[in-house]
């Protein structure tokens, strides 16, 4: 009943929206899942959710498909365009080929955020940026508030606005870019992400988003992109696009959740290469790396898809699958399979209220299992060179696989301040040549670091000739941090954010290298405590003795007070005598002054003794 009611409400909302803005109503929201089996029993699942709202309604706080929580933050921080990325793992471009979306919907490991802010001055932009990062930090349960001045850069060449900004001028729009390479992306970031969707995770393709599966993926990236789009002759709309890409290991995903331990299978279930001469019941050369090409949607995601989101644009098929047409695919009832003209993909049209399931049986033809992935425009691999805790170097290997096209790109590094790079050591050379080739680097933008205030920003526009490999290297020095600046896990090392590579020609394509772990000279943190304890002991001993000598008065033995039982007796007698005398005089009411000197002398000695006693305590 409640479901029916909410459905009715939702349809009313969509109906009313139809009335209000007739032009863009059909394209207001759509979602699509693209499944693409990859070589080595991997499966790429790309979830895409896109919704539009007109700028005038956005400014009037009239949110429909646009999430209100995010919209208000954007308005408050004067954000014109926003890109937020949560990524984990690495894309294996040698096996998996080109990245989904041309690399435009992914970030480096950790969290990456860049935005165009409207502000009159740099200080205002910094202030708005602080507001934005802190607000997003709360919204996404991520440590985005740690993007401070040392982690923020203002890229010059690498990023261009994706949306249309007809009123944008360079003076009042600021691009800020921040990255947190050590942030571990986890389920706590997925939940707020799902809440931004119109159907949450209750219907449509979002029902397949399960934290356990998403974070068991070999590579995954969650992206949020907000940008204004101005179609010709129509009102500008603000578009929010939420994208989740993940590469699942089919073998791992098929393991039941209750028994995730990869115990060895029973011997008779092990797929063996029977052509080996030594093949026997107890000897088996395994062939299972070719297996696991058969899977079902519910095996991979742990559940079936619960219908479609009723708000989605019916013209866009919710699920598409990229496998060769020759491969047979079974699907549940109420689903219409449409093969596309390119002969390597097919889409499924699903009734709103049926459970959707597809089954890919083991293929008969070993060759037509997957669509051969596209070759990326560029392969990039970055690593540290050198060893020791004083200096180091960074080497990036850039390989252009194309036989005839030169690749031109911008290579951007945002390094922490404690990596002081020597810019003069930066050089590029082509593999096989020993001398550096100055023609490879076309333009360098370098903004040096300021200790504890700003990181290094390095942008290099360079080219890689066809079918060649270029080594880009530079050296750096490691600074020594202050004792309190080390994190609790100082010996782990410090994460260095991924380098961003933006390809300018022959086509727009983005990629990021893996992040690095830089070990700095780390003090032995138990040592300060040892030193403190040691010096305290030494000072206590020396101070005790010294103080004793200073305050104690040395007198010859015959001059000083007598010690021993006799002396004690004498003293007690003296005291008693004094008391008796006092009592007597008290009766007469007259106190004598002359007894003042001797007790005073005793008192000094006593003070010294009592101080010494206090010290010992």
């Amino acid at each position, binding site marked *: 009943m409640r479901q029916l009611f909410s459905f009715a409400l939702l349809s009313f909302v969509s109906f009313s929206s139809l009335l209000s803005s007739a032009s863009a109503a059909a394209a207001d929201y759509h979602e699509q899942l693209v499944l693409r089996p990859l070589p*080595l*029993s991997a499966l790429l699942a790309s979830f895409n959710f896109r919704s539009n709202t007109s700028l005038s309604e956005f400014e009037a706080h009239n949110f429909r498909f646009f999430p209100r929580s995010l919209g208000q933050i954007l308005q408050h921080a004067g954000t014109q365009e926003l890109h937020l990325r949560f990524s*984990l*793992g*690495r894309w*294996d471009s*040698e096996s998996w080929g080109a990245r989904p979306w041309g690399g435009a919907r992914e970030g480096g*490991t950790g969290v990456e955020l860049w935005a165009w802010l409207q502000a009159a001055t740099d200080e205002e932009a910094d202030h708005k940026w602080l507001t934005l990062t802190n607000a997003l930090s709360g919204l996404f349960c991520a440590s985005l508030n740690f993007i401070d001045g040392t982690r923020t850069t203002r890229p010059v060449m690498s990023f261009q606005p994706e949306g249309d900004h007809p009123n944008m001028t360079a003076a009042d729009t600021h691009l800020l870019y921040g990255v947190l390479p050590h942030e571990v992306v986890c389920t706590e970031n997925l939940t707020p992400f799902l809440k931004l969707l119109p159907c949450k995770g209750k219907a449509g393709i979002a029902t397949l988003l399960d934290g356990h599966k998403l*974070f*068991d*993926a*070999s590579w995954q990236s969650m992206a949020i992109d907000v940008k204004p789009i101005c179609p010709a002759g129509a009102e500008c709309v603000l578009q929010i696009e939420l994208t989740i890409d993940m590469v699942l*290991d089919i*073998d*791992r995903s098929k393991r039941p959740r209750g028994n995730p*331990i*990869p*115990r*060895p*299978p*029973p*011997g008779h*279930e*092990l797929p*063996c290469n029977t052509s*080996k001469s*030594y*093949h026997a019941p*107890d*000897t*088996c*050369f*395994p062939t299972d*790396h070719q297996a696991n090409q058969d899977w079902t949607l519910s095996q991979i995601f742990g559940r079936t898809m619960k219908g479609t989101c009723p708000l989605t644009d019916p013209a866009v098929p919710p699920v598409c699958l990229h496998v060769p047409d020759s491969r047979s695919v079974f699907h549940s009832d109420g689903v219409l399979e449409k093969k596309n003209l390119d002969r390597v993909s097919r889409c499924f049209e699903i009734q709103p209220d049926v459970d959707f399931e597809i089954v890919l049986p083991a293929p008969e033809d070993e060759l037509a299992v997957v669509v051969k992935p596209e070759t990326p425009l560029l392969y990039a*691999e970055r*690593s*540290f*060179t*050198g*060893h020791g805790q004083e200096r180091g*170097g960074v*080497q990036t290997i850039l390989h252009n696989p194309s036989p005839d096209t030169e690749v031109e790109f911008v290579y951007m590094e945002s390094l922490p301040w404690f990596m002081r790079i020597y810019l003069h050591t930066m050089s590029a050379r082509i593999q096989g040549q020993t001398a550096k080739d100055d023609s490879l680097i076309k333009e360098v933008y370098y903004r040096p670091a300021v200790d504890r205030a700003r990181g290094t920003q390095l942008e290099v526009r360079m080219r890689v000739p066809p079918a060649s490999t270029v080594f880009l290297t530079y050296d750096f020095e490691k600074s020594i941090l202050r004792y309190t600046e080390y994190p609790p*896990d*100082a*010996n*782990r*090392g410090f*994460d260095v954010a991924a380098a961003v590579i933006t390809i300018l020609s022959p086509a727009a394509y983005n990629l990021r290298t*893996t*992040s*690095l*772990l830089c*070990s700095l000279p*780390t003090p*032995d943190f138990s040592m300060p405590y040892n030193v403190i304890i040691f010096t305290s002991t030494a000072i206590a001993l020396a101070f005790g003795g010294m103080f004793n000598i200073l305050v104690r008065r040395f007198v010859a033995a015959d001059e000083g007070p007598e010690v021993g039982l006799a002396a004690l007796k004498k003293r007690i007698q003296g005291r008693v005598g004094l008391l008796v005398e006092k009592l007597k005089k008290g009766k007469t009411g007259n106190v004598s002054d002359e007894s003042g000197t001797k007790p005073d002398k005793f008192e000094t000695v006593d003070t010294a003794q009592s101080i010494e006693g206090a010290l010992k305590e």
Partner: protein
Amino acid sequence: MPRLLSSALALRRDPRILKIPPYLSLLCILVGAVWLFLLPLNEYSRRTYISENALLPGQVHTYFGGSDQNVLRAYKQEVNSLVGKSNVEINDKLESIVRGLGLKTARQNFTYHAAGRTFEGENLYAILQAPRGDATEAIVLVAAWENVKHEVNKNGVPLVLTLARYFKRWSLWSKDIIILLSPDSIAAPQAWVDAYHDAHDSSRVASLPIKSGALQGAIAIDYVQENRFKSVHIVYDGVNGQLPNLDLINSVVNIAGGQMGMGVALQEMWNHNDKYPDRLRTMLRGMLKQGLGLASGPHSSFIPYHVDAVTLQPFGEGWQDEMAMGRVVEGTFRSLNNLLEHLHQSFFFYLLMHRERFVSIGTYLPSAMLVAANFTIMAIFLWMKSGQPEIPAASTTESSDKDDAPTPTTERDLFLPLAIVALSGSLSAIPLYIFNHVPESALTPLFYLFLLINTLFPITLSLTITTLFSPNLQQYHLVKSFSLLLLGMFLSSLATLNFSLAMLIGLLSAPLSFVKPSSSPVSRIVGFVLLNLTSPPAVLLASAAIWGLNVGDILREAAVAWHVTGTYSAVVVWCVWWPAWLAGCVCVLGRPGRDQEEEKKVKKA
């Protein structure tokens, strides 16, 4: 206080004070040597413990087994069919297997030239990328095709292949796992590790085409034994006496000994009863290996780069099979995988005397320092002595009442002593160069020739010096003082880097503290013969005879170590010990000229 100072000053002038240092020096040596023998006692050694809590050794279930054994048998068949084939053929086959597991593979060529030999080969390695990792950290699993004794690692290589296949199924790895299949146990891992850290000479060692993150640890498997084994032998000595973090050894001891119930042995002590003699033997073996500074297995090359590594060798007749060994490696890798920070908690300087007993640097260092200090004490003593005139024996008895008269000082003639010490120091480059650069075949004859020259040369040198310069006693004192000062300085700083080497050299050169020129020819000859018995080549010959080794082999190993792994023991022997020995010989053979001039000087004073 002023009285204390004045009495101290008076004490300084007291001629009796100069009698103490030789005895103090002897006491230092004796205490240093005895100290060493006290270490195995319960009172001076400690039980080992896991310092890095993140390691949690032996806390996980290990699942390696079952049908994995069928796979292991198949891989063993494949490996057996490769025995005797060339390095490239072996790598071709192994690469096809590893690639089939879905790992990224690459190869690396290397060539080393040492002792007239060429060590070349091709490393094959594969990277198992952490399923959700980002290539920031890695751990290494090494299986050399041949171990240090040049036996084919017939079980180790299939085991590593099977483990790679098994590890691929797990999704819990936080670090990449690098599988290194090297053709030999010393040069190949060295080339690989050098190239991994870009510390290689690119004309001899190729760069690595693919890399992962910072190496956090390495385990090498040397599993030659065909039948079932009893326990695991941990080899942990690194190049130049560097050691892996004690936590790594403790983890393996904990996993193999505690969880798997197989014993653990160290330093080839196959049966260890944890009594004093066995502890002492284990410690002394460890010290000898540390002192030699040679690579003892594929793990040794990793340690200089601050990558903690050990080699595991199954040994003995027992009932443990390959799967048990695999589970030990699995458990150790799970522990290393837990590491949040690079291993830093526990000890890097220690002497192990039992698998669960060790002494740390604070306890053992004084012994080597005392031995080194004896040279410094003698050097200072001789410097002071050289500044005082030689007072005839008769006059000392009368001079009891001239307390406050200032001690007469004499000018020190520094040129000749400094020249002699500098000459002996610079001559040391000759044996260092020769023994590291002649071909293997020439090493043995050259050694005997050197032994002969080494015996005759001090006599010639001493004769030349006495005839040309006729040095006096003071100059001999200064020669000895400078050479001992250098020796003491080098040994005390070496003691912090390689304790055992400093201790060994210190004890062997201890006689140098007590040699002195004599006027009687008999005592000169006796002194020279005794010194020759402790000369570096004589000690080498003696140790070769004791262990039944060929001198040529020892020298070849030393030359290979010098060129491949960068062992600096040869520098210490030839450039620290030998010059001091030469200077000692010059002193013992010296005939201090009783110059009339000096006697006149004394009379004038």
